C-alpha cells in the first residue's frame, strides 16, 4: 500500500530515485541482514542497473547503504573513498539475473568472521524497493512496515513458536511468508508487523534452538 511520502519523497541525494536512493536502501537492508560490519562486498548489477550504474552513481549509492548511510546523506558522493578508509573491500559485476526486475542488485556481504549474507533487491521506482531474495530463499519485503526476517531449520512447529512469542507480546502480524531451500534445510520466515517492534521480541524468538537469527528490518 503506497502512502504520500512514497510519491513526494524521499528527500535524497540525486541524481536518480530508482538508481541512487533505491540502491542506497537495498544496501542498507543488506547490511541489516548481515547484522555485523561487513569487510567485503560483492555487488552484481542486472538490467538497467548493469547498463547505467556508473552514470547514476548506483555504485556509490549501494556502497553508501552498505556503510549504513541514508538516502539524504551528502557523503553518498564520496562513499567509495569512505569504504576504502574503513577497509571495506568491494567489487562490482555486470550480470544478467534471470527473470529479475530491470533495476536489480544482488549484494553478497561478508563480515570479519567469514559469515556471509546474500541479498537481492529491486528498485521499483521513486526510491521504493522490494527485497526478493535472502541467501537461497525467495522473500518479498517492501519496507513499508517493520519486518522480521527469521532464518531457521525446516522442522515442524516453527511458525507456532514465533507467532506465539508475537501473540504474547501483543504484536499484530499483517503479512507473513515462508520459503525454504530444501526439505529439512534452511527456511526463512518474513513477518510484517504493525507499529514498532522492540528487542525483547527478538530475544524471546532467539531462545529456540532451531532459529538461526532474527533480524528486524526497520520500515523505510
Amino acid at each position, binding site marked *: *500500500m*503506497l*502512502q*504520500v*511520502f*512514497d*510519491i*513526494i*519523497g*524521499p*528527500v*535524497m*541525494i*540525486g*541524481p*536518480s*530515485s*530508482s*538508481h*541512487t*536512493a533505491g540502491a542506497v536502501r537495498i544496501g542498507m537492508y543488506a547490511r541489516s541482514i548481515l547484522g555485523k560490519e561487513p569487510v567485503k562486498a560483492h555487488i552484481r548489477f542486472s*538490467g*538497467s542497473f548493469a*547498463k*547505467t550504474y*556508473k*552514470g*547514476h*552513481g548506483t555504485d556509490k549509492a549501494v556502497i553508501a547503504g552498505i556503510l549504513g548511510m541514508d538516502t*539524504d546523506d*551528502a557523503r*553518498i*558522493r564520496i562513499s567509495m573513498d569512505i569504504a576504502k578508509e574503513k577497509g571495506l573491500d568491494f567489487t562490482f559485476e555486470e550480470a544478467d539475473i534471470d527473470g529479475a526486475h*530491470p*533495476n536489480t542488485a544482488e549484494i553478497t556481504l561478508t563480515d570479519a568472521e567469514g559469515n556471509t549474507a546474500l541479498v537481492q533487491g529491486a528498485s*521499483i*521506482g*521513486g*526510491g521504493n524497493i522490494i527485497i526478493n531474495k535472502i541467501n537461497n530463499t525467495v522473500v518479498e519485503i517492501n519496507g513499508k512496515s517493520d519486518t522480521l526476517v527469521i532464518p531457521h531449520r525446516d522442522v515442524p512447529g516453527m511458525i507456532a513458536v514465533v507467532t506465539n512469542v508475537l501473540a504474547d507480546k501483543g504484536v499484530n502480524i499483517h503479512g507473513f511468508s515462508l520459503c525454504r531451500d530444501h526439505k529439512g534445510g534452511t527456511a526463512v520466515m518474513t513477518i510484517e508487523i*504493525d*507499529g514498532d517492534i522492540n528487542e525483547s521480541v527478538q530475544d524471546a524468538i532467539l531462545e529456540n534452538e532451531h532459529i538461526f537469527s532474527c533480524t528486524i528490518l526497520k520500515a523505510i
Partner: protein
Amino acid sequence: MFKYDSLADLVAAANQSNEPLSKIVLREQAEAAETTEDALYAAMAKSLTVMRESVQEGLDPDKRSASGLTGGDAFKMMRAVEENRNICGKIFGTAMTKALAVSQTNACMGKIVAAPTAGSCGILPSALLTIAESRNISDHDLIMALFTASAVGMVIANNASIAGAQGGCQAECGAASAMAAAALVEVCGGTPQMCEHACAIALKNILGLVCDPVAGLVEIPCIKRNAAGVANAFVAAELALAGIESAIPADEVIIAMKKIGDAMSSTLKETAEGGLAVTPTGKKLCEKVFGCCQ
C-alpha cells in the same frame, strides 16, 4: 480508507464531503498511518523547505554536474526573465528557471525531494513555488496541495508506473506534470473535478515520451524535460481552470499510459540503448564521460 486506484473515486469522495482533494487525502493518510494530521503536515512542510533550498542551490551559474555535461542553464533562464528578454512572460519564465534549477541540483548529487522521482524532481516544486510568488499563495496552501499531488501520483503508481525503467519518461515527467497540474488547479481555487481534468490533459500531452538518457545520466535530456514538464502542467491547469474538460477521463489515460509503457522497447526505458542516447553526439558525450561508450 482509499485504495488510490481511481482519480474519479477520489473526486467523488471530495465532492461528497464538499472539501478539496488535499483535505480528504491528508485525513485518510493520517488514519492509515495511525498518526495525526499535524504530524503528516509537518513532514510535508519539511519537504517544501527542501524543495525551496534545491531551487536556490541550482541557480548557481558555475556549478557543473560530476560528469561535466550540464550546468548553468537555470542561471541563464533566470537572467533572461530578469532582463525581460523571455518571450513567454514572467510566470512561464520563472517556472522554467526553477524547474531547471532543481533538476540541476539533482544532477550535481545535491539534495532534492523526489516528486515522484529524482529525474522529474523539478516539475512539482517549480509549479507551486512559481504560482505562490505570482498569486501570493500561503505555504499552508502549498503544503496541502502537495497532498493532492501525492494522491495523483499514488493512483498513477498503482495503475501504471512512476519508473522510467518500466514506463519511459511519460511515467516520470508525465506523472510529475499531472501531479503539478492538479496541485496548481487546487491552489488557484479550482474544483476537484477540474484537478482530475488537469491531470488527464497533462498526461495526455506527454504520452509516449521515452526515457533515453545520454550516457545513462539523469542530465540530457532530463533537465530540459523538467522545464517542458512544468510548462505542460501550466497548460493543463490553465485549460482545466477555464472549464475545458478532457474527453478521455484521467483514469483511462493512466491505463493508456501503462499500455504504452508495456509496448515500449526496453531500449527506450532507461537503458541508454536507444533514442538520444545512441545519436552520434549522444555516443560521443558518453565516450567523453566514461572513456568508452557503456
